[in-house]
């Protein structure tokens, strides 16, 4: 084959890559289109930007499903963007979560002076998370982690007049950039050891490299990705940011960076350190055990439900990390992680939607504000009970199936001790989840103070979708688990 033919073949391959990249394209168009629309539309029509961004998120999810079912998996852009089952599943989860978040955020951001730009930044964050979940190249990991972090900081500080929002954004910024810089410094050593930024090449070079350098650089990389997933000991930002950021943003921040960080760990570690070299599965298992234990113990004392959910999300990150720890020892690790991520996203969005509704009505997210909720708002209470019980892991809800899969994977990978720790942790978590549910269901209705603001249609829709997904992922688990089993990792090269 002569040069012209080779060039032509490469060009054709690049063009057909675009088909696999279409879900990402939808998210890029969401961000860019939102900026243009936000400029073009008058202020009272900015809600249309939100509708556009939500639609683009849903089409990204639909395109991801289409590519999976119709075309299969492919390593695109010379192995830089790996469109495998893991990546497509994550784009699906992010797409639906993003659309739900837009609906959640609409009542909060409507009428603020930069509403359209809020949706644009949200779409940029989703795009960055999708790319981070598919990156087969460390330069792309650094770039997408940076874009995800920066968009998250902006979203957290969106309400510029709010002192708490300011503080949350700045704290998040400081933790995030330091952890990100540490990760990039670690990645620079990976490049030095492998002579390439491709994960595949790095995986071939690291096992023969000086152990000290590999350990230090890998720890630094785990710092950067672990902060995203709020793993202990990089979790300190989580409660403050969750409490200070606007609540719909908190809902998204509890899903998006966590999903992206965990999936990036699940992609980077097995490829860079093949066959569990240096004992990384055990190290990750220990981090998982510490994360879930500290998260649960800290959650016990919280009087604010947002902070309680923040520590609960740290504990959930610990359970989720079990899937990553099991990946090397068991085939079931990755599908379990993917399923639990989907369940976690649905459940957490539902939980935050209820907290948002309560906070909009009573002006407070303290546990006391939930007392007697059952008499005033039976539907909200139903969603609250379902989502909290799903976080706890009660059958037949989504969280139960997710937890069960992750626990089984841990046992299969020979980490039964970790499964025991996780079960004990689940028992502990019963106390703080019940502390919110019980007064909501059992207490008599409190006297109405002030004027109750009715939930808007967008918020109610988001709440309904997330709650239905929480139940559906638990009840019709069988076919969906089969699908998750297809979520295999594809080597970069």
């Amino acid at each position, binding site marked *: 084959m002569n040069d012209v033919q080779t060039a032509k073949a490469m060009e054709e391959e690049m063009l057909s890559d675009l088909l696999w990249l279409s879900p990402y394209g939808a998210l890029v168009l969401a961000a860019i289109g939102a900026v243009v629309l936000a400029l073009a539309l008058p202020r009272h029509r900015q809600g249309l930007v939100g509708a556009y961004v939500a639609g683009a998120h849903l089409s990204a999810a639909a395109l991801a499903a289409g590519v999976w079912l119709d075309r299969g998996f492919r390593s695109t852009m010379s192995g830089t963007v790996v469109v495998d089952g893991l990546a497509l599943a994550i784009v699906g989860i992010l797409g639906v979560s993003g659309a739900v978040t837009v609906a959640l955020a609409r009542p909060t951001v409507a009428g603020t002076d930069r509403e359209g730009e809020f949706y644009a930044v949200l779409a940029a964050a989703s795009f960055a998370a999708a790319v981070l979940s598919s990156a087969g*190249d*460390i*330069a792309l990991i*650094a*770039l997408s982690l*940076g874009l995800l972090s*920066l968009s998250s*900081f*902006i979203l957290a*500080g969106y309400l*510029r*007049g709010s*002192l*708490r929002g*300011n*503080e*949350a*954004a*700045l*704290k998040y*910024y*400081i933790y995030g*950039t*330091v952890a*990100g*810089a*540490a990760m*990039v*410094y670690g*990645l*620079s*050593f990976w*490049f*030095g050891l492998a*002579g*390439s*930024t*491709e994960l595949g090449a790095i995986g071939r070079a690291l096992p023969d490299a000086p152990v000290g350098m590999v350990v230090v650089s890998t720890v630094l990389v785990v710092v950067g990705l672990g902060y995203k997933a709020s793993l202990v000991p990089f979790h300190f930002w989580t*409660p*403050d940011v969750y*409490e*200070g950021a606007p609540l719909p943003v908190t809902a998204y921040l509890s899903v998006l960076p966590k999903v992206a960080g965990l999936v990036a760990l699940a992609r980077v570690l097995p490829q860079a350190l093949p066959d569990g070299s240096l004992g990384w599965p055990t190290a990750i298992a220990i981090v998982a055990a510490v994360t879930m234990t500290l998260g649960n113990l800290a959650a016990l004392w*919280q*009087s*604010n439900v947002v*902070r309680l959910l923040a520590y609960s999300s740290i504990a959930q990150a610990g359970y989720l990390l079990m899937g990553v720890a099991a990946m090397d020892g068991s085939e079931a690790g990755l599908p379990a992680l993917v399923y639990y991520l989907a369940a976690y996203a649905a459940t957490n969005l539902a939980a935050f939607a209820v907290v948002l509704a309560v906070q909009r009505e009573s002006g407070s997210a303290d546990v006391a504000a939930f007392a007697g909720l059952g008499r005033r708002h039976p539907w909200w209470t139903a969603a609250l009970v379902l989502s909290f019980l799903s976080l706890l892991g009660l059958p037949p809800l989504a969280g139960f199936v997710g937890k069960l899969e992750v626990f089984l994977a841990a046992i299969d990978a020979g980490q039964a001790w970790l499964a025991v720790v996780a079960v004990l942790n689940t028992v502990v978590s019963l106390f703080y989840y019940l502390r919110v549910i019980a007064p909501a269901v059992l207490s008599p209705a409190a006297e109405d103070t002030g004027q109750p603001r009715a939930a808007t249609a967008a918020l109610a829709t988001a709440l309904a979708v997330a709650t239905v997904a929480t139940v559906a992922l638990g009840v019709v688990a069988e076919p969906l688990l089969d699908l998750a089993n297809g979520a295999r990792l594809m080597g970069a090269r």
Partner: protein
Amino acid sequence: MSLTVVIAVAALLFGIGLYGVLSQTNAVMIVMGVELMLGAAMLNVVGFLRYAWPEAVSGSFFVLVVMTLMALEAAVGFALITSVFRNRRTAEVDDLTELQG
């Protein structure tokens, strides 16, 4: 030998940046510390490119990516600091005490 020097200088730079982040209470100085840490990563890659892998084009791309990140992080960081300063007339992180518990 030269590669060792470059890596040592980069490590020193990273250490200074990290010390700055941990010891400074002014948000502007913290941002500068982060920039030093990222600079250390860039210097590392450039050193590896020059002395170990002169053929690795992807390394030059990596440096450009990190440079872009530095610029963006500084821009967003100063925007956030400005926003805090407008509301509170201070950029000292120790004064940020709204969120605790």
